[in-house]
């Protein structure tokens, strides 16, 4: 039987975390503004490079002269969401430094609420540039309403997957910063080899093999395929493996994140401050 009271109290806790995080983040507004500007720098170079590459060839796999701008705007939104990963260690690290962490950690709430609170507050803060770039994509290549919902669903799933990763790095920021730095570096490598803003086809063979082993590549590729196909059913049926990876990561990573968070915090507690 559904316990509505429990659901309500969990939602209230998530809301409290979102409200607190947003207030803490907008205290110094420039940091938020630069959160929006930074991804532009990240996609600007690929945008220029790709423009030049299309003078030599009309197509690189899925990427064409007609759609590469849309793919770069999608990449901008992925970079915006990528900030969620760093938000977890960033926020938990700040709370450790501010010494507010003990008050938070002895509060009786489920760590999923912490995950969702940080995730949704970040989503709220990046919502305006995200929507702007989504609309830009739509202007260049319009898509149907079911595809819009499908693409937003994938973005949402990616954000949740990133939250799971963020929570894992976050707990090590609290308990063992060495491991946190190692994980952050490993994640940077994974992102580097995930074809966020370049087509898979332009990379040399050895890198293509590495990229093929990277689950994030399939998830990001699904976004681009979904946009070009403009039919969620065709996208899913013709790309079952990327869709399977997306669903698997979506279910497993937040759960693994919470599990590791609880285990590590229970064993090591707050270390280093």
């Amino acid at each position, binding site marked *: 039987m559904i316990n509505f009271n429990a659901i309500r109290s969990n939602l209230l*806790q998530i*809301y*409290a*975390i979102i409200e*607190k995080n947003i207030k803490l983040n907008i205290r110094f507004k420039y940091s938020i503004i630069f959160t929006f500007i930074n991804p532009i720098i990240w996609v600007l170079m690929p945008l220029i490079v790709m423009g030049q590459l299309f003078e030599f060839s009309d197509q690189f796999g899925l990427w064409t002269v007609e759609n590469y701008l849309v793919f770069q705007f999608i990449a901008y939104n992925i970079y915006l969401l990528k900030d969620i990963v760093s938000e977890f260690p960033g926020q938990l690290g700040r709370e450790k430094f501010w010494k507010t962490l*003990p*008050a938070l950690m002895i509060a009786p709430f489920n760590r999923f609420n912490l995950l969702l609170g940080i995730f949704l507050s970040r989503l709220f803060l990046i919502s305006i540039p995200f929507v702007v770039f989504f609309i830009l994509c739509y202007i260049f290549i319009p898509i149907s309403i079911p595809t819009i919902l499908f693409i937003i669903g994938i973005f949402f799933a990616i954000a949740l997957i990133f939250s799971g990763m963020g929570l894992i790095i976050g707990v090590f920021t609290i308990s063992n910063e060495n491991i946190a730095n190692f994980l952050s570096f490993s994640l940077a490598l994974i992102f580097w080899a995930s074809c966020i803003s370049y087509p898979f086809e332009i990379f040399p063979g050895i890198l293509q093999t590495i990229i093929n082993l990277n689950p994030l590549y399939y998830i990001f590729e699904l976004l681009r395929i979904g946009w070009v196909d403009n039919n969620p059913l065709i996208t899913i049926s013709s790309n079952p493996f990327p869709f399977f990876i997306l669903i698997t990561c979506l279910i497993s990573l937040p759960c693994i994140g919470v599990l590791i968070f609880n285990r590590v915090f229970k064993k090591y507690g707050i270390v280093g401050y």
Partner: protein
Amino acid sequence: MAENIIETFDLTKIYKLKGGKGEILALDKVNLSINEGEIFGLLGPNGAGKTTMVQILTTLLQPTSGYAIVDGYNILKKPKHVKNKVGLMLESDMLYYRITGYDNLKFFCQIYHIPNYKDKIHKMADEFGLNNWLNQYVEHFSSGMKMKLALCRTLLLDPKILFLDEPTLGLDVKSTTFIINKLKNLNRTVFLTSHNMNVVEKLCNRIAFINKGKIVKIGNKNELKKLMQSEIKVELELNENNGQLKYELTQQEFINEIIETDFGFIISLKEREYYKDLFSILRKYTILKVKERETSIEDLFLKII
């Protein structure tokens, strides 16, 4: 007979030193029991294990061995239940400086599902004299105000047991007195750790002394003071530093210790019966004032630790 609300069983915590170069025994098989409703003080020097004890009892830290029962729940098996029962105030105020005082209180009230929190926040802020400051960023608060706000937060959450780790550290006399008076009238179990003997003496029903992770003495205030009763402390106020008097006093076997102060000396007599011998010496000098000093917890602390 009051029921035990906190019980520890061979509670031990070992910290490993960097590079495997030994260990620090922060808590060494500590067995304590605290009654419901009592204000219990844990006294000890820096590094004695006080904060470790509080962190373990509030589930922030896992013991290396042993366990504790807090309000009927094992801290290792039912940490969530324990969290629902305890309130914690550390020497760091654990406040978000970048948001307002009101937002700080509101956040924790929402997390703990406190009903009608808006009214409660204003009522409590009024009691603590913080109402005019509630909508200011905490970074603008003085240390005393921050501590008051931290206490406000802890009390708003209505915990059954209050853990206070050095709640008056760095505060002026006025703020300290305010916090002491507030805590005195709480009518709930308080577990207090402090260096400040004055605070502990004024507040606590029972006191334990901890040193190097071990409880070295435990008892109620009067029992502990009785331990010191055979020793008499006498304060001598002189109009000038009298080296001759000090020399003569140090030669006496009935005097345990002479401490030089700004105004003269504090002398520890072995027994009350030696007053007569002391006065026969003092008669030869110009003494402004002679006063017997009441034995304090601080004296006992200095003797034990």
